[in-house]
Structures are given as C-alpha cells and as structure tokens.
C-alpha cells in the first residue's frame, strides 16, 4: 500500500496557501516588490527540495529591518498597500526557514492577514469562493499540524488520505452558523477605516476627453462596466450617457467650463415616461456616473454635481462599485435654451473640410443633418478599430483621405461638419447597448460597448444622432459559452447585491420584516393569530426553562456535569465504542473485568486490560482523572483502533 508522509502533505498545503495569497497581492502591491516576493517564494521551494534553510537569526533580522523600512515609508494614504507589502514580504521570508509547527502557525496567520487585506481589492464572488477554499485548506493544515506535533514522521496510507478532509465539516457548519451572524450582526453604514486606495483598474474605453489620431488600435475589453437593473427596452434607446464634450481643439474633445451651468434650464419632462434604473457601476469613469440617456432624478449614497449638459459627476472619491438609482427619460423632452455660441466653437481647419461641409448644407437644419448622415453612409466610410490613422490632422485625414475609423472619428467629424454649417452640436461619450440578463433582469454593459455619439441642437432641443455605421451593435448572446458567462455574472451580481451591498438599512429592513411577521396585526384575525404566535413563543420559552431546570437537577443528583463528562467517563465511552467495532459489546449487567474475559484476541485483550485497570481506579475509587492519564489512555485506545482485527470486515 502506498503511504504518504503527513509532513509532506502539510508542506504542500502550506506552499499552496502561501502561493495563492502572494498571487492575490498582485493587484495591491507594486510590481517590483511583487517580483521580489515571487522570486523568494521559488527560492524557498528550492531550499525545501534540498533541505537547506536560511538561519533563523538572519530571517529574523531581515524581518525586523523590513518592518522598520515599511514603517518609515508608510503614511495614511498608502497604509493598506504598505501593510500588504510587509505581510507578503514576511510571508516569503518565513517560507525560507526550516519549518516547525509554530512556524506553520505563523505562516497561516500571515496568510490570513494578507487575505483580509486583499478583500479590499477583490469584490468578485470568485474571491469569496477562493476564500472559502483557502479556509478549508487552512483548517486541514492546522489539523495536520496536530499530527506533526505528535510525530514528525507521521505516515498514513494513501487510502485514508480522504479522511483528513473530514475535519472540514467543522468550518463547513460554522460557515452556516456564521451566516446568521452575517445577517444580524450590526453593520456600519460606512467602512470603519476609510483608507484612500488608489484604484488600479486599467482605464479603457472611457475618459473625460475624446482624442482621435493617437492610438492605432483599440483593445476591446470584456470587463464589465456596469450592471443596470431595469426593464428591457428597445435596443436603439440603449445609450448610456457619461460625459458631454463641447470643445474641440482639432484632436481632442473636452468639456469647457462655460457649459457647466445649473440644471434648471431643462424643461418639461414631467409628462414623459420615466424609466427606473438601479445601476451598479463597477469601474470608475473619471468620476462621471453613467445613466440611461437623459437622467432626471438621481439618488445615491454620495454627493454629486449635475451639469446642464446632463452629465453627472461625483464630488468625492468613491470606492467602486457604486450603486445609485436613476430615473431617465428616453423620449424627446421640452425646449431648452442654450448659448449657441458655445456649441459652434471650431479649431483651425483645412479649407477642404469647410468646402465639404458647405456642400452638405441643406435648405433647413434638419436637411443638413440628414445630408451629413447620408454622406457618411454613401461615401464609403468604414468602421474600424484597427490600423487607425495616426496623424497630426486626424479629422481632416479621416474625412478626406482614409475614410475609416471608430465611433470617435465619426462623431467628431459629424459634429465638426454641423458646426461649420452653424448648427450647434456636441459629443457624448458613454456606452451603447448591453446584454440583457433575463434571469437577473438587468443589463450588462462591458468596456467594449464604449461609444461616442453626437447631439444636435435642433428647434430648441438636443437630438441624438449616431453617425457611426452599425458595426458595433452586439447581438444577443446565443453561444453556450456566453450563456455560462451570463450565469456566472448573475451569481456575481447577486453576490454584489446581497452580500457586498448588504448594509445597515437592509439589515434593519430584514429585522423589521421578522418583527412584522411576529407582530403582524391582521384586523380580522387579530386575536387568534397574534395570540397564537406569542403564546407559542411563551410555551417554547417555558419548555426551554423546564429542560434547563431538569438538566441541572440531573447534574445535581449525579454530581456530574452532564454536558461535560468527566474524563474517565469520556474515555470509558470511547473505549466501549472502539471495542464494539471489534464485535465486543459490553452488556449493562456486565462488569468491566467480566467484559475483558470475553475478549478473545490476545492483543486486544492485553491493551484492554491496561485500560480497564487504570479506568477502574478512577471509576470505583471516585477519583477525578487528570489530563495526562487521559492522554495516556487515549494512546492505548489509538493502538487498539489501529489494530487490524483479522475477522472484522473493514
């Protein structure tokens, strides 16, 4: 039979846990330290293989030195990052040592602290699942430590390997129990330590300016920008507004200060149907909140600014994800007064462009708009994300020379053409479309849905026009893989909704529901129902007390505490149980020595005799067993348990 040394198993678990923890810090600490730590990790593996370790003194000195260094470089803004750095570094140092049981415990403690720190950076359910997995691993390792403490060279047959994992029933059940704490333990409405964490998410797709002609290729990213809980609406209305841009310098569109007016100019939206959205914004968008088309009412747990151009900006730095509620209007709204001059600004442009613009001028403003849209459609313009022209005059080159580009080119070009013709126009950057998750009733908007379009001021209203050819319209997911992603995302979404966003208000609400359930006053059945419930509760309490009193009476009578058996009884019960496995059952009318007579097997008999002889002293001489004797007897019992009785089927 193959045998496994428990120490090796423990080492494997320890390195696995440590590696996971180290890898998790990738997001949190700077890459230089990260690579050093990884390097140290591999060195420790190498050491382990050759059984040569760093001297403890050296490690300790290194540890102290690094703690001091980190202490001096730490301030409030990088507290978390530096702590994680220190912890991870200490962990990798610790791994370099020759490990005794206490070292394992220290390693686990470090891992635990690292995990706690990392939880700030990961809001994904997969992190949570990983955490549970590590919890089980940690638990198993601690259990193994107990064996190693007894005997460094503890060996078990590989067949029985699985039994080690049985110990995980304990954390498994405690997880269930702690979920009760999760629901009822009072929560803070804001984090206890509001650490200023610099978000390290890669910024793609959206920025507070639209620049063309710099990147030749735009990466399509699948990361999720926002989830919007709302009813399903027509695809063509799915424009998620981020920022409105009005100033063009020939290359980039930015937001000018003059247009940051108050919101009061927005008229007549009361008659329009409003669409309610609950938005979970995952990635920061330069502090701009994304909303469906024209937001009317916004509420959230933060301060914000509404601009006249409908963009909304959070004033304080928030940790993401952010949740907020929006009511939006997707139909046209009433007239709006603007300062036309602000939306007619143009940079110096080439003559050809101006000529092109004049050629597209129609009899009315509407016709001009139509002409321009027609121009993009019929003059061979193509949508592309690759090989974008890099030039100093990107707009002119796009219009006159290359005729292909992404939405930013199309939108910029249209706005410029309109402005030349004296029609006020502005750019809106945001997202378009999204996948509707039927099960969760929410839209999923990804980074690749980033889009830019044009708003044109016609007849006192801003109207949306999208000159970009419909190359980026996403089809509804139909592939199996997509569906799996959908389900996974749904789980993640619920994790966010019910666990991460579980706050004091929700808690109060749940408690209130509980309370309401018990004190529900239905006028018709008021007497019976409430009476029954309170009576039931009372009866239950009374029964509970009776049981408690009875138990204490029993304890008093037998002078033993029933819940915590004295050691000699404990070992007696264990002993009898063990022998039962070998087919020896002690009758109640039998004394222990009589029982011993029944045992045929010489080995069992000899061991049992030892146990019984000691037990009798404590049982019949009314002595309390000390823990040492208990341990000794337990060892005897272990020997019996490990004995392979030839006649018993295993």
């Amino acid at each position: 039979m193959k045998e496994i040394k428990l120490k090796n198993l423990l080492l494997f678990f320890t390195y696995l846990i440590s590696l996971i923890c180290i890898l998790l810090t990738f997001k949190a600490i700077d890459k230089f330290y990260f690579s050093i730590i990884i390097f140290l990790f591999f060195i420790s593996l190498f050491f382990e293989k050759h059984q040569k370790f760093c001297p403890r003194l050296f490690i300790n000195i290194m540890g102290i030195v690094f703690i001091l260094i980190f202490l001096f470089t730490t301030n409030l803004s990088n507290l978390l990052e530096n702590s994680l750095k220190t912890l991870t570094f200490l962990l990798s140092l610790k791994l370099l040592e020759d490990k005794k049981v206490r070292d394992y415990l220290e390693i686990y403690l470090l891992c635990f602290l690292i995990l706690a720190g990392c939880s700030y950076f990961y809001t994904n359910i997969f992190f949570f699942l990983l955490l549970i997995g590590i919890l089980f691993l940690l638990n198993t390792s601690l259990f193994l430590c107990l064996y190693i403490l007894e005997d460094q060279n503890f060996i078990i047959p590989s067949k029985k390997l699985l039994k080690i994992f049985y110990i995980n029933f304990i954390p498994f059940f405690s997880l269930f129990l702690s979920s009760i704490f999760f629901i009822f333990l009072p929560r803070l409405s804001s984090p206890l330590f509001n650490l200023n964490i610099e978000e390290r998410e890669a910024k793609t797709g959206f920025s507070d300016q639209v620049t063309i002609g710099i990147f030749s290729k735009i990466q399509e990213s699948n990361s999720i920008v926002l989830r919007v809980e709302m009813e399903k609406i027509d695809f063509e209305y799915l424009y998620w507004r981020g920022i409105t841009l009005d100033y063009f310098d020939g290359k980039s569109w930015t937001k000018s200060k003059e247009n940051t007016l108050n919101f009061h100019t927005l008229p007549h939206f009361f008659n329009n149907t409003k669409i309610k959205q609950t938005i979970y914004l995952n990635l920061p968008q330069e502090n701009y909140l994304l909303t469906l088309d024209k937001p009317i009412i916004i509420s959230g747990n933060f301060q914000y600014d509404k601009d006249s151009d409908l963009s909304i900006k959070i004033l304080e730095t928030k940790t993401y994800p952010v949740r907020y509620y929006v009511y939006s209007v997707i139909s046209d709204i009433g007239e709006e007064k603007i300062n036309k001059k602000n939306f007619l600004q143009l940079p110096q442009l080439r003559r050809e462009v101006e000529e092109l613009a004049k050629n597209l001028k129609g009899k009315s403003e509407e016709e001009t708009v139509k002409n321009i849209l027609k121009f993009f459609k019929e003059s061979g313009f193509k949508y592309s994300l690759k090989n974008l022209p890099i030039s100093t005059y990107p707009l002119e080159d796009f219009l006159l020379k290359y005729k292909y580009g992404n939405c930013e080119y199309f939108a910029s070009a249209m706005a410029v053409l309109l402005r030349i013709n004296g029609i006020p126009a502005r750019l809106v950057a945001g997202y378009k479309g999204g996948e509707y998750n039927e099960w969760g009733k929410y839209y999923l908007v990804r980074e690749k849905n980033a889009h830019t379009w044009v708003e044109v001021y016609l007849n006192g209203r801003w109207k949306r026009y999208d000159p970009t050819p419909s190359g980026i319209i996403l089809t509804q997911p139909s592939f199996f893989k997509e569906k799996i992603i959908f389900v996974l995302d749904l789980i993640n979404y619920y994790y966010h909704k019910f666990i991460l966003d579980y706050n004091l208000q929700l808690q109060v609400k749940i408690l209130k529901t509980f309370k309401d359930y018990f004190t529900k006053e239905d006028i018709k059945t008021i007497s019976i129902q409430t009476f029954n419930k309170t009576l039931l509760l009372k009866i239950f309490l009374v029964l509970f007390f009776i049981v408690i009193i009875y138990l204490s009476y029993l304890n008093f009578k037998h002078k033993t505490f029933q819940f915590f058996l004295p050691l000699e009884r404990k070992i007696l019960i264990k002993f009898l149980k063990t022998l039962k496995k070998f087919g020896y059952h002690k009758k109640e009318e039998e004394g222990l020595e009589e029982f011993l007579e029944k045992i045929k097997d010489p080995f069992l008999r000899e061991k049992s005799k030892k146990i019984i002889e000691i037990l009798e002293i404590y049982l019949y001489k009314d002595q309390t067993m000390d823990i040492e004797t208990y341990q000794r007897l337990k060892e005897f019992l272990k020997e019996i348990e490990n004995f392979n009785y030839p006649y018993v089927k295993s």
Partner: protein
Amino acid sequence: MNLERAFKVLTQFLQGKEKAIELCILCLLAKGHLLIEDLPGIGKTTLALSLAKVLGLSFGRIQGTSDLLPSDITGTSIYNRSTGKFEFHKGPIFNHIVLIDEINRTPPKTQSALLEPMEEGQVTVDGQTYPLPEPFFVIATQNPIEYYGTYPLPEAQLDRFLLKISIGYPPREVEKEILKIGSLKEEIISLESILSEEEILNMQREVKNQIYVSEKILDYLLDLIEKTRKSAYLLAGLSTRGALSLLLAAKARAYFYKRDFVIPEDLKEIAPYSLPHRLIFKEEYKSLSKEIVREIIESTKVPI
C-alpha cells in the same frame, strides 16, 4: 508478597482447586468461616490442613458424630487431685484453624455450642470465658447426600458462615496426576509455613479498614439486596448482616487481587458463595437456589 507465595504453594499441592483455595483465603482474610458442602474424599481435609500448615497456624479437627457433645468441642474442666481444683482442658476449638467434619451429623445442641466461638471468638465453660486464638477460622464440611441421621444446620447457624462452597471433582488431567503421584498428605504435614499469625492479623485489619468502597458499589449492593427481597422465588431476602458479610468478602477479594478498592466483579464473584445459604427459598425452588442467585446477579445493572 507472602500471600501470593502461600497461594502458589497451595495450588501446587491441591491441583485443580484454585477456586476453592482462593475462597478459603478470602474467607480467612474477611475473618469469616467457611462451610464446604461436598462429598467425602474430595480433599476437604487436605485443603484445611495444608492451609493451616502454609499459613503457619495451629490446626484442630473435630469429627462430627451424632453423639458429639459440646464439651468435646470446647474442652472441659477436670478435677486435679494434686491442686484440688478443677482445671480447664482446652478442646480442639482452641486452634487457629478448626476443621469440623460433617457438621450436620452433630446434634443441634452441639452445633449451637459453635455459635459463640464463631461469632464472638470466645468460649464460655462453667461460667468462665476463654478467648480463642486469633486468627480463628472454622472450616466446616457437610455431606449433601446422606440425609440419614443428619441434623440440618439452622438458618442462624448457617448465617455464621461467610461463604459456602463446594470443591467438586478435579479435572481429568489433574486427577490423573493425583493418581500417578498418590496422596501427598505426608508432604503437606511437613510443609513449611509461609505466613505468620501476625501477618495474617495485619492482613485482616487491612481488609477491614483500608479497602475503599465507592458509593456506586454500595448502590450496586443495595440493588442486589433489593432484588433478593423482591424475588418471587424467595421467602426472605438478604439480611443486613448478610449484606455486610458479602461486602466484607468482596473487600477481601479486592485485597487478594491487590486492589485497594472494590469493583462490582468482587461482589459478583463472591455472591454465589455468600448468598444461597443465607436466603430462604420457597420450598419448590430450594433445589434451584444457585440458579436463582445467579439469575439475580446477572440481571442487575453494573455501575460504571
């Protein structure tokens, strides 16, 4: 330990009688008296004699006959002409170990003369009280079959015996050995003593005072007593004195097994020898006395 050695020597001479020897010694340790009910020629006398020899005690023997008088046991005062006084001549009872053979052949008057020495360890003759040597140990035998011309011992008399045992036939192998070697009586007589009076008295004291009896054991004993008193087969259950002597014998057994506390097995082992002659069975169940006692013991829960 000398007791152990004594036991070893005894088992050598009395092969196959370990149980009887053990009970014999227990009886002595508990300061009790032994009644052996068995057929003649089984080795009762040999047992008593060798016990006396090994223990280094004096040995007296009384043969029970229908004309045995009390004075034949206790001794009698005889007129001394030279002194002109009556002098007391001690009878065979003035020995450490007294074997009374076929006690049920002696008439009741003579049997009752044994009451005082057995209970009080003294003899009163002609108004004069003489103390008996200590330790004092009576081994009486009775014949189970020959009812003819016998006077069955009354309950009060039976109660004086701590244990009632029977030796039984030796196993076939052992009997073969005995046949080969022949009687060992002479060797027994020339045995050297292993224990002394003093040691035996010490042991008796230790048994009485130094063996711990837990509440559990007492409860167990009380359970047993209660069962005998409630049993449908019995007219009368165990008396308090019976319970006391059972406990004392159990203590002796604990001592014999080098324990300083009593375990339930002590009671269980002793009870079949201690109870049947003390209980009064209904007429129809008399012949089943041992089985009934065993049933009572087997059906009582053992405390652990």
